[in-house]
């Protein structure tokens, strides 16, 4: 039995209605308990800001695409190199850091749980190898279904039960967590070098539309009672005028779940553009947030961009090719047979670029114009909008109008006419920040039952203590203190174990991987369905028997079982 007592913590725990309360937190064997014995280890928080461990609900940190981003970027590896030190292995890289680099930086920022934004089922083994090599964050994988042939056939036949059965088999086979749709249908079209420009356009050869894929997958997702909702990267990402597609898509979404949203729309900043060309692009954050404010069934994340060099990586192959034609920078593409696509390109977001400035403003507008912070979460689509180490600056921007104005003053002079950011006075408070970085993310991902995102009795003792005396700090003027504070925790506690102190990781890791195993009635299961098996063996280049990810790849796996009601 191991016990830990955190004394004099200034706690924000939105899910338990706790806001700026001085209290002690008792921990036994990795969980929060009522009280501990006198022999418990004690740490003193000295009245500093204490939050549940940070959760990133959309980040690219592990897997084929991420590793290829590293593979092709020796120039980035020269940045942020550290030697082996104490329990820390060597790290390399700034915007595409090594597996250790990502984990250590998340840890020292107080983040303890991360959802990998995109895992191609065929390459799942790779993602899980990196999950296992990740010391400290509990991981889970969005599983890509956007161009899945079997799914599109089911959609075409209007067979939701079939779609659900395929999802069930796939998730359990590749140890995935949730359904991810990236540019649904578009990734299949990209197999021919094409893309879809509307959610009502037919996918070549499959006679289904993105709209049909999305609605069917939402229905299937809820039939299977998956903890997370469908996780959608809308069509037309990064195209001027794409906000209409985004609004159309939101209008498709029914309210089907009392516990959480029915659709998670990711990196919406990239989907909120007005105008018709890059010349007249402008912000449609108001239209987008008007829709979201009226639709409790939708949760989005910001997809904030921050200025500087970074790497874009997504399953959205066609979008990356367009970006390549724009930037002429090195371009990688990786289509995955029968399933999805992907692309990678380095970018530089510059204050000299009006387009980039508009993008910067839109992300912040989305957050500030969304009434309920549970509906707009803090994320950069790491590393697409910016590496996650920029989160503290984003928090600063959300909490301080003055900081925003000072930044705004340094931007391209055209930014004012294209955006509304300078007219927004809202300043987020500590509680709202706690929601956008913990509580909201846990709720959206459906991991509150796993003890994530709060500090109530029974919760997993994932705790971040920041060197910020929130009682004495005024974020709207002292935003520098806020930013510095969020960059390095005094303590990061994972399952009751202190993993980082003052920016140093001090223990070897023992993270877990959450995955979902939905059970469906035998009669509709595809595992033994002759047609499914036949097509699999004919068109995949690996045998169906070699496809599922063996248990050895999840030494610390945590299976969540769900019952489908069909």
């Amino acid at each position, binding site marked *: 039995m191991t016990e830990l007592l955190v004394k004099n913590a200034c706690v924000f725990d939105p899910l338990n209605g706790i806001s700026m309360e001085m209290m002690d937190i008792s921990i036994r064997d990795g969980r929060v308990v009522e009280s501990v014995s006198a022999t418990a280890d004690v740490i003193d928080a000295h009245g500093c800001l204490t939050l549940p461990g940070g959760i990133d609900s959309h980040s690219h940190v*592990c897997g084929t695409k991420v590793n290829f981003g590293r*593979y092709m970027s020796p120039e980035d590896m020269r940045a942020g190199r550290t030697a*082996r030190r104490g329990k820390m292995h060597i790290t390399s890289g700034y915007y595409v850091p090594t597996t250790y680099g990502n984990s250590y930086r998340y840890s020292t920022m107080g983040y303890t749980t991360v959802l990998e934004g995109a895992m191609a089922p065929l390459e799942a083994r790779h993602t899980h190898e990196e999950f296992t090599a990740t010391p400290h964050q509990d991981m889970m994988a969005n599983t890509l279904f956007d161009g899945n042939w079997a799914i599109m056939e089911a959609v075409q036949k209007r067979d939701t039960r079939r779609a659900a059965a395929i999802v069930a088999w796939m998730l359990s086979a590749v140890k995935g967590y949730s359904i991810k749709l990236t540019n649904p249908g578009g990734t299949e079209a990209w197999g021919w*070098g094409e893309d879809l420009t509307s959610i009502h356009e037919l996918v070549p050869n499959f006679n289904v539309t993105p709209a049909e894929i999305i609605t069917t997958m939402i229905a299937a997702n809820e039939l299977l009672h998956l903890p997370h909702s469908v996780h959608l990267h809308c069509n037309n990402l990064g195209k001027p005028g794409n906000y209409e597609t985004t609004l159309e898509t939101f209008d498709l979404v029914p309210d089907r779940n009392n516990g959480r949203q029915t659709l998670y729309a990711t990196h919406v900043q990239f989907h909120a553009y007005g105008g018709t060309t890059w010349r007249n692009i402008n912000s449609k954050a108001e239209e987008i947030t008007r829709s979201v404010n009226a639709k409790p069934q939708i949760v989005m994340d910001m997809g904030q961009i921050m200025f500087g060099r970074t790497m874009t990586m997504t399953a959205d192959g066609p979008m990356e090719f367009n970006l390549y034609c724009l930037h002429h920078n*090195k371009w*990688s593409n*990786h*289509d995955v047979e029968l399933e999805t696509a992907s692309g990678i390109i380095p970018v530089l977001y510059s204050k000299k670029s009006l387009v980039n400035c508009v993008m910067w403003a839109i992300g912040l507008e989305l957050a500030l114009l969304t009434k309920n912070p549970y509906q707009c979460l803090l994320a950069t689509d790491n590393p697409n909008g910016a590496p996650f180490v920029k989160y503290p600056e984003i928090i600063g921007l959300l909490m301080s109008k003055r900081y925003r104005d000072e930044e705004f003053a340094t931007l391209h002079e055209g930014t004012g006419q294209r955006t509304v950011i300078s007219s927004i006075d809202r300043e987020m408070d500590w509680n709202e920040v706690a929601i956008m970085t913990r509580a909201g993310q846990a709720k959206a991902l459906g991991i509150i039952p796993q003890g994530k995102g709060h500090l109530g009795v029974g919760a997993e003792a994932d705790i971040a203590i920041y060197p910020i005396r929130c009682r004495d700090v005024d974020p709207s003027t002292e935003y520098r203190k806020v930013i510095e504070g969020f960059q390095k925790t005094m303590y990061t506690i994972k399952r009751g174990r202190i993993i980082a102190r003052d920016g140093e990781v001090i223990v070897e890791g023992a993270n877990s991987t959450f995955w979902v195993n939905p059970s469906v009635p035998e009669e509709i299961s595809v595992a033994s369905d002759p047609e499914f098996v036949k097509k699999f063996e004919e068109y995949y*280049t690996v045998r169906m028997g*070699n496809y599922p990810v063996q248990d050895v790849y999840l030494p610390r796996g945590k299976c969540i079982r769900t019952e489908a009601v069909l």
Partner: protein
Amino acid sequence: MIIKDVVCPFCGCLCDDLDVEVDGQKIVKVQNGCTLAESTFTGSNRLPAPIRRTASGWEAISYDDAIRDAVDILLSADRPLLYGWSSTHGETQSFGVHIAELIGGVIDNTSTVCHGPSILAIQEVGHPGCTLGQVKNRADVIVYWGCNPTEAHPRHMSRYTTFATGFFVPEAQRGRTVIVVDTRRTESAEIADEFIRIKRGGDYEVLSALRAIVRGKCEVLPREVAGVSREQLVRIAEICKKAKFGAIFFGLGLTMSAGKYKNVRNAIELTDELNRHTKFTISPLRGHANVYGSNEVFTWITGYPYAVDFARGIAFYNPGETTAVDILRRGECDAALIVASDPGAHFPHSAAAHLAKIPTILIDPHQTATTPLCRLQIPCTMAGIDAEGTAYRMDGVPIRYKKIIESSYPDDADLLRQIHDRIMEAKRA
């Protein structure tokens, strides 16, 4: 007993549809595999026990002594070289990297003399690629450039390209146009619809010419480029532009000829250019079964796919400086650990000779051309035969090797774990 869907640990195709008949600890029969697979599974001359070189010759020693020797050699080195890694599984590879990290060594894998130049090219311009099934199901134009799959990847054509039926290509051969580019008329060239014979060393020029043609700059070109007529180049460019889905596969003909990675870069930029007209992909034909796995593992731990130097504590990468052949040629390293590869056979001898001058440890199941050069060889299991583990196919698809027979040999991962742990202890003390 017949084991189904066995993964072949020979080449980068990583065929996973073999049926292998085993009788206890013996492999009796291999079905579906190519001749290379068959000889791989029936591989002979496993080294029976650890051996150590003495003044008078060789002596058999215990695994314990062997591991102690290895640890002593590695700990006392000022510039150890850790090389190989492509004929084993991922767990072994990551132990290798961690040992290099601990002792401040240089770690390199066999891509250094295979597709290392392709990696350098990709680091300059990226890599428009795809998984092999994408080619199998869609490609109507296939280009083999500077490679000879019939001899090096015998089932590549039947599983993924020329002779394979795919969803959108129901009639394999009739549905696909095959172009072969080489300096000699190989067996692969025999089955090509178009064969381009290039003067040795002229790949770069021909690729530049094709790029210019695709960009509509044909008039700039001379009548003939590196022995290829402008007419044929124009014809080839047209076939490619008209393709619905084109796939280029290239081999050592590009990476080993003059210009090295610049040849590959030019081929990639041709692919980029073609993507403005239709869908095109390009892929290196990786040689050893799991060489791509060594690139993946190295990359997520160190940030670099090969040639990583830990001498300064941090990871430093600079092929040409931190690559195995260069370090051996300059006689820089004062100890070597060779795992799952045979530099004695595959390195220029002026480089390999240095291995005989320094304490070289070899961890490999077989007696190889490196055996005579080393001071110490520790035999182990062979991944995919008597050991299981992860391998990455040439297109990045990870597949799990099966263990199809039991053996008394230790897994090379266990040997390296022991070496790693004893070095840790020594460092703490």
